């Protein structure tokens, strides 16, 4: 799997979105070239009519390579996840849950889980769900990520904290009923620094949503985030001062 990265040719620097889709579909395109095309696709703008085709190709790529132990594949899978989730219509978001499924044949690398949780959060920020919208599969997967990763043994380790933070914020945006249980779990942490960070990000994100959606579309999401922040801030100074050692 570990082939050298093939530099794009002069023609590929002029690659159009249509040309890129054609090359991704071409069965003779090798692994290294396919990775490169996926990475280039992330920074390209596609016509609305091309997004369905693009996302079908990206989904196939993600499912084929997400279990790879080649770091170059995982970089490309990260690109594919970001573009796939960012470009998809909100109605397709529940399908992302299967990518987080811990029961898959192999545990997805943590970096893949991080990109998925991050992009679900970003998708919901751009499309704040209303109180009638339900995403049960995603709700379950994100709850599982928070349950497993938001603990004192893991949070300070590379990528675990970032994955847990994105999962916490996405979960609260998805389902206000989760606020109490998430807050309870975070209050039980000795890692006061993580609770403080989650509260700050929830509050800042809530304010940002209220500014961007002045038509009231984000009121439900903003209220949920504000509630989480308030519940976490109530507990500050409680369980412990965490790791606030001055240097």
């Amino acid at each position, binding site marked *: 799997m570990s082939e050298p990265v093939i530099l794009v040719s002069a023609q590929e*620097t002029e690659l159009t979105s249509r040309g890129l889709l054609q090359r991704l579909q071409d069965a003779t395109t090798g692994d290294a070239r396919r990775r490169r095309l996926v990475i280039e696709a992330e*920074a390209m703008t596609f016509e609305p009519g091309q997004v369905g085709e693009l996302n079908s190709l990206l989904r196939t790529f993600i499912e084929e390579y997400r279990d790879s132990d080649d770091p170059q594949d995982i970089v490309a899978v990260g*690109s594919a996840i*970001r573009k796939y989730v960012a470009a998809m219509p909100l109605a397709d978001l529940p399908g992302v849950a299967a990518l987080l499924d811990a029961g898959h044949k192999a545990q997805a690398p943590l970096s893949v889980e991080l990109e998925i949780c991050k992009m679900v959060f970003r998708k919901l920020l*751009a499309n704040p769900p209303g109180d009638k919208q339900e995403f049960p599969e995603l709700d379950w997967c994100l709850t599982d990520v928070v349950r497993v990763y938001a603990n004192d043994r893991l949070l300070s380790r590379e990528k675990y904290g*970032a994955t847990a933070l994105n999962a916490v914020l996405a979960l609260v945006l998805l389902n206000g009923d989760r606020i109490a249980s998430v807050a309870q779990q975070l209050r039980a942490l000795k890692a006061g620094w*993580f609770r403080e960070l989650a509260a700050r990000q929830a509050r800042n994100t809530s304010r940002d949503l209220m500014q961007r959606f002045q038509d009231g579309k984000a009121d439900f999401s903003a209220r949920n985030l504000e509630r989480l922040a308030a519940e976490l801030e109530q507990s500050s100074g409680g369980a412990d001062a965490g790791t*606030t050692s*001055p240097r």
Partner: protein
Amino acid sequence: MPAQLLRDEPVPAHRYDVAAHDSQDLPNFVQHVGLFADDRSELRRNDQVPLVHMGPPLETGEGTIAIQSMGTAALRTDDILQIQIFIDDRAAEYEAAGIRQDKRAQYCVLPHVESFQELDGTVTYWKFSCAGFVIEAYRFAGLDLLITDQGRIPPVGLHLLDAAYPGIAASPRLRAHFKLQGDGPWNVVLAGYVLNALNRPADAIRREPHQPTRGDAFFPGHRM
């Protein structure tokens, strides 16, 4: 001292303190800033140091860069852990950018931070200038170093801009790529502003952001 010129006498630096590299053409003009990747017990002028910084692309301690000054906000362990999450959150975006044909695609000059978005507004990835990366990493951890509202950033002319980005004065195309329209001046957040923001008492750094002035492009800052 929160910010200082480095000399032959060694000083310590801690992980995610701010490291600065000067222009070779304009004395004391701060050309680049980044974060120390690790603690260093002895740091001298022109030491080659691994940084977490926006090259572009983002580097997380792989290479080294010669530094001439540094600044610290006396970060606590909590701050460091929070900054680490900011870096982890964006690192994969920059790993991809390092492979992409146009590495500048994830760098911005004006504003200091911006996003690449899809049609519905979903952010696919973030872009930063070198100063922008440091400012936003610290903001994420609740430390607002610098006022960055466009109307309150000092205007920068072509001469200083070229010291920050060598070759940009001669290239209208490069300026256009970085959204620097016309002949300037432009309200660009320069690397020196970050270092001068740290050149204050530690409690002031945590209490309020620094208002940059034109002389802050240099360190020590010039009084104009």
